[in-house]
């Protein structure tokens, strides 16, 4: 893993350019190259004019301004990446101002919030940037004082010369530093971890002060002179097309200024579905006018796309056997045939929605061929690419501002709202338009975490060892390719840990749009596989943590399967398992009847997490009393304040998926749920105590938005089994 990080920081040659800041000071452009795949042929990463959008600037009054390049969706990146820069710069956090960058990947490198990738990718470039700026300031002071730079030290934004007792603030040498040749980033000296002054310190989020005062910093808070508000009515079933629309009475509704039928492009991934936009002076007036629309939809594409039909198709697919094998190690069939004991079980889970608290929205103004957008998107660059594909708008004609997003969870990886508002804004040029979906829209037009079915079998030897493991996964797809976020992970444990294993797959078609939801490819697979392995452990006369430890064996690196890139370190897995066994006092069983602990482990998004849930069951009521988490995301927790929040949030999110009854169901492509009454989220009374322990090996830090979520669900279902003897093989949990 360290090699991969080194490549990102050194081989790709992050480049610095320095210039004089307007009004005096140092402006540093940092060009963090995009991976070659993100640049068009013949295109090169280039710096635009420095100054206003310099990545790091130091004004002559000592104020350090650091651009936050990535979308902030609640993961805390707007605080944590600047912390890394500021630490190596060796300035005081109170000197630092953070500004949100607009989309400009040629300038800032990847601007993306997804896959818990930013800390992994940006850790080294951010450190090098801060260290280089510090080195230039030091050099400027050395020249001023006519001493060797090696005799100078820095602390809290000042440069000191111990021999003469002189010191000077960064701001006072910032202009001179602009003339210092930037150092080679690959060789600029970095701090030792014991020299960090900010990294590892719990710091309050940079926007928190504004949030508690109710300042308008989210996408829906965007206010522009002359702003009008829009809703977008689409077909009541997925894949529906507009046949004809009678818009007259909606147009005459109070406050309504425009009603605009819009032809979609038929590509659900692009997100511009057929629909009718209603634009009004107030969002509520636009939404009220929807009931006056008379629209005829063609819903034929969705006929038969019902949850009940999907279930029977999955049953048939399991009975028919796999369509394809994804991974075969050894000879699992022979090992199963000769096993002393065989365990079989089926597991399934439903579609679920993301339901971030801020509904999908976007603000746009189109005038004279130029488009200006304010978007709470996790993937603004993808949005820019979509604008070109869907509307033929050239990227150079688009200005895209990133707003804070009221939650992401993967929903805002898609840019459907951006396409829709652009279509509306193009129809009403010169007028800024804010599109916001109602909650019902948001629940019914999601790119859902797809449902899935697993048929597992395990063979246990006479010695109690797991000899063979197979999984027939039934998912959604067209027969060749799985639907978005509906694929399998062939590295799913116990792959790589036992000799004989087979992972297979069948697909059933769907018109429903699917997509990544927090810990995609892990959230559901972990529930199914770790719950089934708990069954295996019981059958083998042991428990899951000890079965996992036996399978993990000696400390070693397990190579990724073909196509994969992430090495799995069995030693790091062992360490988090052993830690949570200790912190949860795993071997001590709760004395109360129908109260027990359950365990699960998962490796996802480069993070190692082992979790224990203590739950009790009384009738149909399940109470989670406490959750213990042991996690390893590398040697440095950049901002423990945010990190612990991410872990708690992931645990609470996972528990709600299992216990709040979350399931999205379809009847002929129409979503049956619509709001927080029938799609429930976690609420405070159900929130358990959550105890977090970090295991911190000497490894580079990795991301935390996702990896803490997957284990909590099977840890819960395994606790329910231990408490009641009832296996939970289907989500959401029902114990009645």
């Amino acid at each position, binding site marked *: 893993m360290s090699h991969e990080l080194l490549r990102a920081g050194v081989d790709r040659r992050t480049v610095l350019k320095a210039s004089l800041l307007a009004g005096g000071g140092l402006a540093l452009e940092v060009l963090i190259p995009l991976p070659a795949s993100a640049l068009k042929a013949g295109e090169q990463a280039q710096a635009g004019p420095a100054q206003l959008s310099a990545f790091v600037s130091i004004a002559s009054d000592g104020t350090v301004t650091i651009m936050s390049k990535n979308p902030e*969706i*609640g*993961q*805390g990146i707007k605080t944590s990446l600047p912390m890394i820069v500021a630490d190596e710069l060796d300035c005081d956090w109170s000197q630092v101002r953070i500004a949100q960058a607009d989309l400009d990947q040629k300038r800032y490198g990847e601007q993306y919030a997804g896959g818990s990738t930013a800390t992994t990718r940006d850790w080294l470039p951010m450190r090098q940037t801060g260290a280089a700026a510090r080195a230039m300031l030091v050099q400027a002071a050395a020249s001023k004082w006519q001493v060797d730079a090696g005799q100078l030290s820095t602390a809290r934004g000042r440069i000191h010369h111990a021999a003469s007792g002189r010191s000077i603030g960064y701001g006072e040498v910032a202009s001179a530093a602009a003339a210092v040749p930037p150092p080679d980033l690959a060789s600029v000296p970095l701090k030792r971890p014991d020299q960090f002054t900010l990294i590892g310190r*719990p*710091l*309050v*989020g940079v*926007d*928190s*002060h504004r*949030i*508690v*005062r*109710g300042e*308008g910093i*989210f996408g*829906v*808070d965007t*206010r522009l002179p002359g702003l009008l508000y829009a809703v977008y009515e689409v077909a009541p079933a997925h894949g529906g097309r507009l046949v004809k629309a009678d818009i007259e009475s909606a147009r005459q509704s*109070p406050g309504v200024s425009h009603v605009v039928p819009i032809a979609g492009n038929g590509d659900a991934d692009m997100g511009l579905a057929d629909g009718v936009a209603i634009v009004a*002076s*107030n*969002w*509520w*007036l636009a939404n009220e006018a929807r009931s006056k629309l008379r629209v005829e939809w063609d819903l034929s594409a969705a006929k038969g796309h019902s949850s009940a039909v999907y279930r029977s198709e999955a049953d048939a697919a399991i009975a028919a056997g796999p369509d394809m094998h994804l991974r075969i190690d050894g000879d699992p069939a022979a090992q199963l045939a000769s096993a002393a004991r065989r365990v079989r079980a089926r597991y399934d889970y439903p579609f679920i929605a993301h*339901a*971030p*608290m*801020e*509904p999908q929205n976007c603000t746009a103004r189109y005038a004279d061929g130029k488009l200006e957008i304010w978007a709470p998107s996790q993937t603004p660059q993808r949005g820019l690419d979509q604008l070109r594909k869907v509307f033929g708008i050239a990227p150079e004609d688009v200005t895209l501002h990133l707003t*804070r*997003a*009221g*939650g992401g*969870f993967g929903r805002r990886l898609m840019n459907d709202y951006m396409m829709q508002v652009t279509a509306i804004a193009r129809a009403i040029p010169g007028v800024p338009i804010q599109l*916001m979906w*109602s*909650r019902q829209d948001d629940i019914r037009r999601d790119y859902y975490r797809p449902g899935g079915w697993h048929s597992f079998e395990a063979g246990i030897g006479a010695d109690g060892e797991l000899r063979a493991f197979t999984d027939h996964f039934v998912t959604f797809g067209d027969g060749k390719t799985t639907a978005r976020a509906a694929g399998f992970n062939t590295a799913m444990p116990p792959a790589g840990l036992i000799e004989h294993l087979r992972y297979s797959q069948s697909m059933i078609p769907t018109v429903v749009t699917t997509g990544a939801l927090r810990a995609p490819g892990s959230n559901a697979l972990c529930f199914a596989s770790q719950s089934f392995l708990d069954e295996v452990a019981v059958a083998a006369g042991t428990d899951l943590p000890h079965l996992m430890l036996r399978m993990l064996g000696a400390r070693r690196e397990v190579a990724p399967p073909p196509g994969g890139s992430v090495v799995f370190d069995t030693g790091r897995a062992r360490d988090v398992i052993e830690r949570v066994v200790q912190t949860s006092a795993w071997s001590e069983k709760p004395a109360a009847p129908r109260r027990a602990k359950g365990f699960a482990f998962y490796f996802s998004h480069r993070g190692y997490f082992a979790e224990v849930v203590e739950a009790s069951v009384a009738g149909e009521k399940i109470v989670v009393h406490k959750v213990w988490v042991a996690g390893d995301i590398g040697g440095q927790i950049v901002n423990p*304040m*945010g990190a612990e*929040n991410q872990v*708690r*949030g*992931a*645990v*609470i*999110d996972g528990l*709600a998926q299992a216990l709040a009854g979350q399931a999205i169901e379809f009847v002929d492509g129409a979503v049956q749920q619509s*709001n*927080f*009454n029938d799609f429930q*989220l*976690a*609420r*405070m*009374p159900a*929130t358990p*105590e*959550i105890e977090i322990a970090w295991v911190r090996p000497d490894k580079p830090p990795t991301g935390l938005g996702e990896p803490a979520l997957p284990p909590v669900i099977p840890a819960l279902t395994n606790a329910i089994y231990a408490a009641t003897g009832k296996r939970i093989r289907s989500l959401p949990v029902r114990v009645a």
Partner: protein
Amino acid sequence: MRYRLDINGAIREVDVPPEMPLLWVLRGELGLVGTKYGCGAGLCGACTVHVDGAALRSCQLPVGRVGQAKIHTIEHIGSTEAGARLQEAWLRIDVMQCGYCQAGQIMSACALLGQKAQPSDAEINSAMAGNICRCGCYNRIRSAIRIAAGMDEEGSHVA
């Protein structure tokens, strides 16, 4: 219809249909965007405001029924003693993740402290059950309320 509303200590005039929920008067007519839309059905608490001191869901309150009531929103809450303590507590332990629901959380918490200076955990859970935090900041919301109430984070009273 024209209405004169007493909002955050000032009279604000608006001309809107009587059925328009207060939420959309605040956000769309008065530029007070701190109060958030989450569900439009009184299910999530993101739009919580104070109406004569009581925490109400502004998405369920038609402007025609507001009358002379004194409306306080998150933009004003820092000028109340309990509100300022809550804001300070929120920042001390950095409660929030995305932050979208926090205005509603603080408004509900403030109304709770107005009724009970040092609420028990059960009272906190009960008063806050109508406010959803999708990011799952509940442990810290509970702790921040305790801190603002002069109790320690774990719930016992500070001596």
